[in-house]
């Protein structure tokens, strides 16, 4: 058993506004130190494109990765609200989080919920140390929003499964240690049945990871092809055939977090700093403030509802994601307008403006396209 880890003070463990304020201040101090040391430059969409394993390790050493994991697995044993405080500060600062993001946000919680004891013992301490990178293998060439249409197959064999198929849009799979794959293990019943989640360790000679360049030429998306890949039975995540239910639960974790309205915050902060004193721009800034403050409270309320370990409400999570990502997209235009109004942008501001522009089309697609989210919300309303 690991000793209580990280630097979460006893005071911070309590769920009071003062405790969260302490944690927030400690997170800000860490960020300030990292910035002062030149360890990172604020980036838009830093949870997806800011990949820095060393930063992840240093953050983990502060007890700020895998915060909700139990102490016996090296986590901090804190609540979703504690994590919320830390994550939003890191996102607002544009810190590089991609190297541990998927492991920390969804793989760890999924393993806690569905994984075997052996799987938990193997992976969770590594996740909490910020030293393991997971990719996610959900989408396929013919299965995007219609996720249950996955064709990747896992055939049962002695000791496990053999995997065949193709996954796409797997962020950072080319530099990850493992990928969680949703595969069909049975054709019986409805198409939502017969799906299973499998952990595939990388690199593997039977797994080909090919880059999919983004529109700005960057490489973080990948196509991942599995050709007769052997997956041991110990690497089955959860129950065979229960993959759909498990993934839907994970998607709710994915949808309600602060990354759904803070992807452009480093840019907005940089631009608004330049509008100081320009009262002709006050209205735009107040409008921004009102929207962000509201979304932040909504996201926090979902996190609060998860503080006793419950899964997030899927509809509330969908509402946060749809409103949040639409705001992110709208703020890119706003940021460009404000930037033009105040000054010739500095090289740093120009970089942020461009980053936000090219990342923005993905905001309302990844993690559930807006149209799908709205269908989920509407169906629940008339149920």
């Amino acid at each position, binding site marked *: 058993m690991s000793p209580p880890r990280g630097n979460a003070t006893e005071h911070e463990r309590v769920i009071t506004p003062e405790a969260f304020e302490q944690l927030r201040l400690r997170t800000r101090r860490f960020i300030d130190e990292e910035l002062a040391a030149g360890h990172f430059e604020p980036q838009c969409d830093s949870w997806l494109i800011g990949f820095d394993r060393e930063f992840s390790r240093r953050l983990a050493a502060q007890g700020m990765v895998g915060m909700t994991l139990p102490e016996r697995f090296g986590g901090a044993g804190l609540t979703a609200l504690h994590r919320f405080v830390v994550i939003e500060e890191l996102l607002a600062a544009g810190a590089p989080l991609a190297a541990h993001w998927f492991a920390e946000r969804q793989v760890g919680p999924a393993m806690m919920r569905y994984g075997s004891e052996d799987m938990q013992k193997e992976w969770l301490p590594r996740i909490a140390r910020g030293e393991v990178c997971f990719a996610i293998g959900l989408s396929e060439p013919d299965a995007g929003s219609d996720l249950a249409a996955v064709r990747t197959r896992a055939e049962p064999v002695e000791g496990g499964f053999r995997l065949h198929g193709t996954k796409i849009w797997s962020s950072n799979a080319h530099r990850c240690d493992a990928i969680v794959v949703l595969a069909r293990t049975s054709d019986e019943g409805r198409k939502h049945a017969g799906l299973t989640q499998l952990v595939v360790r990388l690199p593997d000679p039977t797994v080909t990871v090919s880059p999919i360049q983004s529109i700005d030429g960057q490489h973080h998306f990948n196509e991942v092809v599995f050709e007769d890949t052997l997956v041991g039975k110990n690497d089955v995540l959860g129950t065979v055939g229960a993959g759909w239910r498990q993934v839907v639960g994970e998607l709710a974790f994915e949808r309600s977090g602060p990354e759904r309205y803070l992807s452009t915050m480093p840019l907005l902060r940089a631009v608004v700093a330049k509008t100081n004193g320009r009262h002709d721009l006050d*209205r735009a800034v107040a409008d921004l403030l009102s929207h962000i403050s509201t979304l932040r409270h909504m996201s926090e309320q979902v996190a609060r509802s998860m503080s006793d370990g419950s899964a997030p*409400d899927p509809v509330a999570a969908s509402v946060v994601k749809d409103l949040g990502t639409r705001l992110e997209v709208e703020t890119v235009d706003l940021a460009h307008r404000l930037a033009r109004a105040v000054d010739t942008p500095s090289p740093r501001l120009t970089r942020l403006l461009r980053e936000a522009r090219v990342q923005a089309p993905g905001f309302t697609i990844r993690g559930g396209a807006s149209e799908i989210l709205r269908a989920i919300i509407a169906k629940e309303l008339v149920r």
Partner: protein
Amino acid sequence: MSGRDFFWPDDPDLRVLADSVRESVSAAERGAVLAPDNDIWQRWIAMEFDRVGLPERFGGPGGTLHDVVTVEMTLAAVPVSLPALATTVLTHELLGDLDHPRERGLLPLLPQRPAPLVDGRVTARIDGVWWYGGTSSLLLPVVLGLDGGSAQAWSLARLDIDEKDVVVSENLAGEPRARLDLRERRVTVLDAHWALSRYRKVQATAVLLTAARLVGALREVRDLTVTYVAERRQFDRPLAVHPVVQQGLAEIAEQVSAALAALDLAARTGHAGQAFAAGHRAAEAAGVVARLSHQLQGAMGTSREYPLGLYTRRLWAWTDETDLVERSLALLQQEVNERTEVRGDLWAAVEALRGSGRPA
């Protein structure tokens, strides 16, 4: 959603309060504007619903900001009109700690700028004043001197009603509103120690109460729309099954959720800036939801007989008569600009709306 209102506290006490308020006006005729001599209003007074939130030391039953907001929200979603709580709450806010009775019959006036006080007399024209009757005296913020400079001394004045100063009309929602034309009216000065910051707090409460009423009407409009699209069939299917209808329905639900959340945060924190954000968010939602709900309920929604129009007229009236989008944003930005520690720092300003901030 855990109920349609995930972003509002799931508090049994608030539910009981809302049910009691709803029940208290259930006998009223649809569309009625209740006057003080009405039995229902009298029952309201007997149950002290019109004084919720007023501390016991001032003769009220006490209560939280969430209680106050709940009463306003509930009344906005029933088909009768009465001045609810706002009169009491704003009277109390204007009086502050002043040892002055919070008597019924006092009407608080909140002009955008305080009226100038010269030789103990006030001249002012104020539009959109709630006018349900039963008013005996007015409370009015005033400033000493006409220069408009920073050295103004703020006061609170009380004056008796003179019917010839009042022109009564009604707003788009059929609610009584008055224009007051005060010409060199002699006033009694109640408090000589006032400041702009305190007036901002009163304005914040006024905006919060308007936001609460809007959210109450927004929820009613959402629920009417949900019922309609679930029951109405077109092309052999319920409207709610058509994807394009689902998109509109979800947008309505999202806007209502956001307005509720902003209101909840404002009620939790009591922060003036967040009250203005709640006003802005509710007003913005009102525009979107009124448009989409009419679109989804088709021609039926435009008839007087059908209930939708009563609530959409409230949404339009309450946002238009106070120019709520623009006014909320202007007040929010003034609030931020006055806090030097967050000026120009968007993230610190967001944090400050929760009533906390990064220490200097």
